[in-house]
């Protein structure tokens, strides 16, 4: 009778591995060696949860894994869900039949969350970890803690950290808002005023944006408050961005002789001019991840194209292959987190579409074709872009998985513009 003995052996084996509590979390953030075909997404089942916030806990983690686009979250109907565990253990046979490589068990604990990941092929506990989390009714902070757990989990399953614990900053109705990466917890972070172009600091604790009246560059806390003006004066201030060390803000500024790119310390000081536009318009600076280069858009040859320059303003160079004719308009560069490409928008047939250009060979790739698509901003995993699209009617935020082309709508309601994807945010 091999089966019962095997099951008994497994049960014994699992019993020896502490399923919760004092588990060593040495495997946190490490691949857990799931068996699945290269190129395929591992099938994952999120087992039923009981306890406070149980339903939303399971729903949030399932959705985070799904939105990450790196695992195949296997959906279970009620019957399958009921049968997916046997006592405290996964129903190995059923999970294997469903094509799961891993099963995830989430348990609310006093003061936190407990995570266990099972390897369905080896029928072993692959990972356990305990997380500190705020109370469920402290919704926004609790959800961020759950999203961080999801990101850990995704790293364990796939080797790449997830992007659930991020937020998107954008403008709607003359104020800046943030929304969690799953489209929940929408909240304003500024009063209504003539403003534009919100961007995150490298830690995600601060944001910068411009006011049109009085024309100025502002830095404030990401949740509101702590407002500081870092540059102001006559003329126009455009498109601020933090330097990679977070200590300065680069922005475009123009008065009487074109618009150029300047840098000013967040702590205060005299803005220093970087670009040499000779009367042309140069806006939207964005640093390469290593901080050595700046991509920006410039009208110096008569229409806007994407350029790069060294961080000190030297060696300005056209990045996008030159476009000609009425359509020639390349704008809004965003440097990918791996440094290898720059996303931007290009007018094609009179309508903006998202493209990337490779830093290696300058090859172009068109990412969108449905509706008007603009203002791309990379996720921290370098695989997703948030952008503004009219594909569903009014201008809304959408998220695109650049690898598969899968997209989802992030916002609904009044028109939005100029989104910026945050870095991964530490639980608060």
């Amino acid at each position, binding site marked *: 009778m091999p089966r019962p003995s095997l099951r008994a052996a497994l049960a014994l084996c699992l019993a020896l591995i502490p399923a919760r509590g004092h588990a060593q979390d040495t495997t946190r953030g490490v691949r857990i060696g799931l068996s699945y075909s290269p190129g395929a997404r591992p099938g994952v089942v999120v087992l039923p949860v009981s306890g406070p916030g149980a339903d939303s806990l399971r729903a949030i983690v399932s959705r985070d894994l799904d939105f990450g686009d790196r695992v195949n979250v296997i959906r279970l109907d009620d019957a399958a869900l009921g049968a997916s565990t046997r006592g405290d253990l996964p129903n190995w046979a059923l999970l294997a039949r469903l094509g799961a490589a891993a099963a995830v068990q989430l348990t609310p604990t006093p003061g936190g969350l407990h995570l266990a990941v099972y390897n369905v092929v080896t029928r072993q506990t692959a990972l356990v970890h305990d997380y500190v989390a705020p109370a469920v009714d402290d919704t926004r902070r609790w959800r961020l803690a759950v999203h961080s757990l999801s990101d850990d989990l995704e790293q364990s399953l796939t080797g790449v950290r997830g992007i659930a614990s991020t937020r998107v900053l954008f403008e709607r109705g003359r104020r800046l808002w943030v929304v969690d990466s799953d489209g929940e917890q929408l909240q304003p972070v500024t009063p209504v005023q*003539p403003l*534009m*172009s919100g961007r995150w600091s490298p830690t995600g604790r601060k944001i910068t944006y411009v006011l*049109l*009246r009085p*024309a100025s560059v502002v830095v404030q806390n990401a949740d509101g408050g702590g407002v500081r003006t870092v540059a102001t004066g*006559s*003329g*126009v201030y*455009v*498109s601020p961005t933090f330097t990679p060390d977070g200590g300065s803000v680069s922005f*475009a500024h*123009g*008065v*009487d*002789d*074109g*618009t150029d790119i300047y840098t000013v310390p967040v702590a205060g000081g005299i803005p220093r001019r970087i670009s040499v536009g000779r009367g042309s*318009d*140069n*806006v*939207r600076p964005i640093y390469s991840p290593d901080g050595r280069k700046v991509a920006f*858009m410039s*009208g110096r040859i008569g*229409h*806007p194209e994407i350029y790069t320059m060294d961080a000190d303003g030297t060696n300005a160079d056209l990045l996008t292959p030159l476009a000609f004719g009425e359509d020639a*308009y390349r*704008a*809004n560069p965003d440097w990918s987190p791996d440094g290898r490409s720059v996303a931007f*928008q290009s007018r094609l047939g009179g309508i903006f579409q998202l493209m990337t250009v490779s830093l290696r060979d300058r090859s172009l790739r068109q990412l969108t074709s449905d509706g008007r698509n*603009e*203002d791309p901003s990379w996720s921290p995993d370098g695989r997703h872009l948030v952008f503004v699209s009219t594909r569903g009617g009014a201008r809304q935020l959408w998220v695109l998985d650049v690898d598969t082309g899968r997209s989802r709508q992030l916002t609904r309601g009044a028109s939005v*513009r*100029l989104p910026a994807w945050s870095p991964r945010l530490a639980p608060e």
Partner: protein
Amino acid sequence: MTRRKTAHLVIAAASLLSLAACRKKPETAPVAEVTVDVDAARRSADSIAAANVAQRRADSIDAANRAAATAAADMQRLQAELSAALSQRVQFDYDRDALRDDARAVLEAKAPILLANPGIALAIIGHTDERGTAEYNLALGQRRAATVKRYLVGKGIAESRLSTQSLGDSEPLATGTDEGSYAQNRRAEFEVSVNGPLSRPR
């Protein structure tokens, strides 16, 4: 002065007074009462004189008011004309900051008013249509404002009186997505800072 003379005067004055007081309904004056207190008569005479003065004054005030009203209306019209000329917008071609002929004409009308009123400061605000990107449009709007400023400086207006800013595509006049709306939105607007009335250019 005799009592009688006074009394006559009083009667005459009284009839005058009653005439003056009762223009709408003329009546015969109450001449029968001849026994009149002299003090009362004097008071009466004084009040008649005062009434006459008041009447003349009222007439002259009316006239002055009419003249002043005309002058004020003229002034108001002039101020409105000068203000309108100062704040009249200029329009631009798509993605351009060059001044068109119609824009030059509008600026030509502003220059002498600015020269005649050195106390005025002008804020020039560049706007764009919604095509292109919001951020590049801010820069384009600024370029338009700067072009307008350069032209006025060329006409002799002190640079310190002219400030420039841009609102890009954030404050459209027309919200349509047709060329007509776009053309209206590609503009420079003018905000006039002025203390007191504007002088007519010589």
